[in-house]
């Protein structure tokens, strides 16, 4: 079975200061891999490093990456998005000055497609003419997810889905990721700090600390409690 | 002695001097050889110009004046990390201060110069107040607005009062006539050196350190307790003062203060000087000023005779000289800003690093062989 995403030896540095060293991951289609770890552990940097940094940003990354079996040279977010790798970022995930419907139109010109995706997010359907800057945190996350889905990703990277959201919404969104993997065969790599909810839906887990992966394995096999005690403390949300 | 520099000094080049020599360690600090090299060249050129005839002396005078103006503008870059497009306006202010004082009967050189410093500082301070909030593009735009406003005011005033411009008194200090030739040249060079030394001295004090912190990151500076407002204002005031004085000196040199000379063209020339020499370096400002000011004369007189001797027709250049010069300088400006904003100083610095790398490789090999 071809891996949807294969990363080996990812190094990320900001102006020479290293943030991630030697990160590797295998993500198979239809699976959900969660990356856990404290603030500053390097989760966000690892995800950003996979899609690549823009020239205007200070980050630089290097890695061996295979996307859907194809070797990716110098990765750039633009080319990777065209090849089916989409990142939903931690911050900056929607166009705050544009209305919901405008943004959806931006990403997908097909009305039927937009309608199909909007079916998953009834709350957004009520907010079509609202500027995204005025949406609530949960609605923004839904919009960001909708935008990503409209691009028909085969590999979806999600960064801190749960940030600032109420527990109920977090559970709902996590379940949603699970369904995407199960029903649509999407390969999902998500970084998060909501440990309990993440473990409920993940197939595989990686724990990061100080820029390295310090533990990983299938959720079923991993002595998750022990690992978490060591590295996350009592942050079991 | 304790070495306080941030980067550890590179090992001293092989020489017969004892390696504990303080001078050598200072020279070996990164960047110093470049600075020394450029300074030596400038000094040598300066000395040559003092006795190479009236034409060269004239060029030298002009170079010195613009070097002072460029230094003035570079205070703002060094002090607030900001580039402003109002150099011409401040020169106009200094020049008109001189012109108006002359009209009121003042003939003392020092009074006029000090007045131009004060006026420049005050206006600089006022310009700095909104400049506190502006960075980048907004400062660019507001300084351009200031440039046009000052230009307009001075031009209108001049049209109303004394059409050809305000005549300045001949530059006589005590009983010595400094108004032309070598004496004027030497006077201007002395002023330039004083300004440079003044800036260098200030940069070693607390003010200079604050400016350095501001340059690196205003946010970080504010968080470590640097009174951003105060130091930024000082930078604006100092920049205005020095540039204003340069304007007064320019008016002395030309003989009158004429608003038409201080337009956006002049401002752009000064910015070009800063970028070509090296936007982050005081010596770069002087270097850039000398190059931009002297090059047209050099092209016209020297290169034309070379080409004539080689049988190449140079009349096209001579017929369109000012436009071709403008095109060349604009092109140079474009290339420098895009690809090497550190200018010539930065290029020389890279050369120095490359040479150091060679030197280290060679000394490592020697050690290995030994």
């Amino acid at each position, binding site marked *: 079975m071809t891996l949807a995403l294969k990363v080996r030896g990812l190094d990320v540095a900001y102006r020479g200061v290293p943030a991630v060293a030697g990160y590797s991951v295998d993500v198979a289609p239809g699976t959900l891999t969660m990356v856990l770890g404290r603030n500053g552990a390097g989760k966000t940097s690892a995800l950003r490093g996979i*899609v690549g940094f*823009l*020239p*205007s940003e200070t980050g630089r990354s290097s890695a061996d990456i295979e996307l859907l079996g194809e070797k990716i040279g110098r990765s750039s*977010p*633009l080319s990777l*998005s065209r090849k089916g790798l*989409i*990142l939903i*970022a931690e911050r*900056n995930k*929607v*166009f*705050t*000055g*544009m209305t919901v419907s*405008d*943004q959806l139109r*931006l*990403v997908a010109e097909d009305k039927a497609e937009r309608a199909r995706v909007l079916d998953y997010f009834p709350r957004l359907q009520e907010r079509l003419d609202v500027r995204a800057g005025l949406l609530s945190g949960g609605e923004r996350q839904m919009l960001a997810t909708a*935008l*990503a889905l409209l*691009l028909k990703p085969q590999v979806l990277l999600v960064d801190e889905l749960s940030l600032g959201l109420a527990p109920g919404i977090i559970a709902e969104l996590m379940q949603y990721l699970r369904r995407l993997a199960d029903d649509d065969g999407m390969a999902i790599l998500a970084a998060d700090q909501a440990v309990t909810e993440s473990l409920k839906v993940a197939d595989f887990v990686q724990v990061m600390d100080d820029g390295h992966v310090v533990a990983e394995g299938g959720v079923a096999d991993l002595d998750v409690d022990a690992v978490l005690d060591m590295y996350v403390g009592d942050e079991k949300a | 002695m304790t070495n306080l520099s941030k980067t550890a000094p590179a090992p001293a080049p092989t020489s017969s001097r004892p390696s504990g020599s303080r001078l050598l360690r200072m020279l070996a600090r990164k960047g110093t050889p470049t600075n020394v090299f450029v300074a030596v060249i400038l000094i040598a050129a300066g000395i040559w110009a003092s006795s190479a005839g009236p034409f060269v002396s004239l060029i030298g005078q002009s170079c010195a004046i613009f070097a002072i103006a460029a230094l003035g503008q570079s205070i703002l870059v060094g002090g607030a990390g900001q*580039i402003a497009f109002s150099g011409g306006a401040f020169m106009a202010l200094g020049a008109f201060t001189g012109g108006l004082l002359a009209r009121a009967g003042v003939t003392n050189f020092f009074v006029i110069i000090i007045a131009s410093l004060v006026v420049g500082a005050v206006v600089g301070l006022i310009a700095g107040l909104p400049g506190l*909030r502006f*960075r*980048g*593009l*907004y400062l*660019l*735009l507001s300084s*351009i*607005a*200031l440039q*046009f*406003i000052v*230009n*307009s005011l001075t*031009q*209108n005033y001049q*049209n109303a009062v004394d059409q050809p411009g305000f005549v300045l008194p001949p530059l006589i200090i005590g009983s010595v006539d400094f108004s032309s030739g070598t004496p004027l040249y030497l006077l201007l060079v002395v002023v330039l050196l004083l300004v440079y030394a003044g800036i260098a001295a200030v940069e070693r004090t607390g003010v200079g350190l604050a400016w350095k912190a501001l340059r690196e990151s205003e946010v970080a500076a504010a968080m470590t307790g640097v009174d951003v407002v105060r130091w930024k204002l000082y930078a604006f005031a100092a920049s205005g003062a020095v540039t204003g004085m340069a304007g007064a000196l320019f008016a002395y040199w030309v003989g009158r203060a004429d608003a038409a000379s201080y337009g*956006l063209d002049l401002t*752009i020339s000064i*910015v*070009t000087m800063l*970028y070509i020499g090296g936007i982050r370096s005081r010596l770069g400002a002087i270097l850039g000023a000398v190059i931009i000011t002297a090059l047209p004369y050099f092209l016209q007189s020297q290169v034309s005779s070379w080409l004539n001797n080689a049988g190449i027709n140079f009349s096209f250049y001579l017929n*369109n000289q000012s*436009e*071709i010069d*403008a*095109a060349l*300088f*604009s*092109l*140079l*400006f*474009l290339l420098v*800003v*895009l690809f090497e*904003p550190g200018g010539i100083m930065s290029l020389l610095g890279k050369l120095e690093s490359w040479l150091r790398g060679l030197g280290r490789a060679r000394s490592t090999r020697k050690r290995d062989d030994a």
Partner: protein
Amino acid sequence: MSVISQAVWGALVTGSLYGLVGVGFVLLYRASKVLSFTQGGFMLIGIYLFYGLITAGHVPFLLAALISAVVVAIVSALVYVAVFSRVAAREPFTTSVATLGLAGVITAVIAIIFGTSPVTVPNVAGSAAFSLAGATVTAADLVSVAIMVVVVAAIIVILRTTPLGLRMKAVADNPSLSVHLGVSASRVATAAWAMAGLTAALGGVAFALRESVDPTGVATLGFYAFPAIILGGLDSVPGAIGGGLILGVLQGAASFLFGADWIDLVSFGVMLVFLLVRPTGLFGRAEVQRL
């Protein structure tokens, strides 16, 4: 009465020119955060190309205007792709300063080729003139205003209805998010530079139809666009038009009340006041960052 209505009409025509050139600036700024001084240079190319086509090529003037506009649009896009695209992404401010250099090169080259003395475009719009509320309106005036109206309307339609317009909005809102979602910021910027070149060329042509032009004068015209866009708001296309018209009226009033020598002072004085008090302009979005 007719003096006033003439002044008003003159202000509107001039103002619409500023607005047209200003729209180009705003498009560029929204697409790449660059304030391009090269607009003045592109105006020059447009004017002299137009002049050459009319006098030497005997091309009908509307066609000549169209050709000029298209050529300059292509030149502008090429300039972006070849020179500024790499740098602009990293450092918009430095790029803005660099555009000054390019403007200087263009102005100097044109001066070398065509000389510095003023050039008068022959009266190609026809010599019809008629009276409107006491003001004399020439055919050239009408053509100028018509050009402005048509071009700006077309641009607004493009921005509001086409996918390109949506992408431009997205890149203006959030360049990095756009790239992550598959929108090529550099392609959007190229389109913006092309459109800006077009507006510059047509603004220049419209100006040349009514006044004689010389290289330095046109470059200064380019600078008048700044008060217009600051008044209107750096990131608003309709704002540029509004700002341009208001500036035209202000200049007309200043000229009328104080004399032509005070136009500069009023224009840039108002610009400075706005920068201090309302940097987002009259129509800009209120969340402009401190750049």
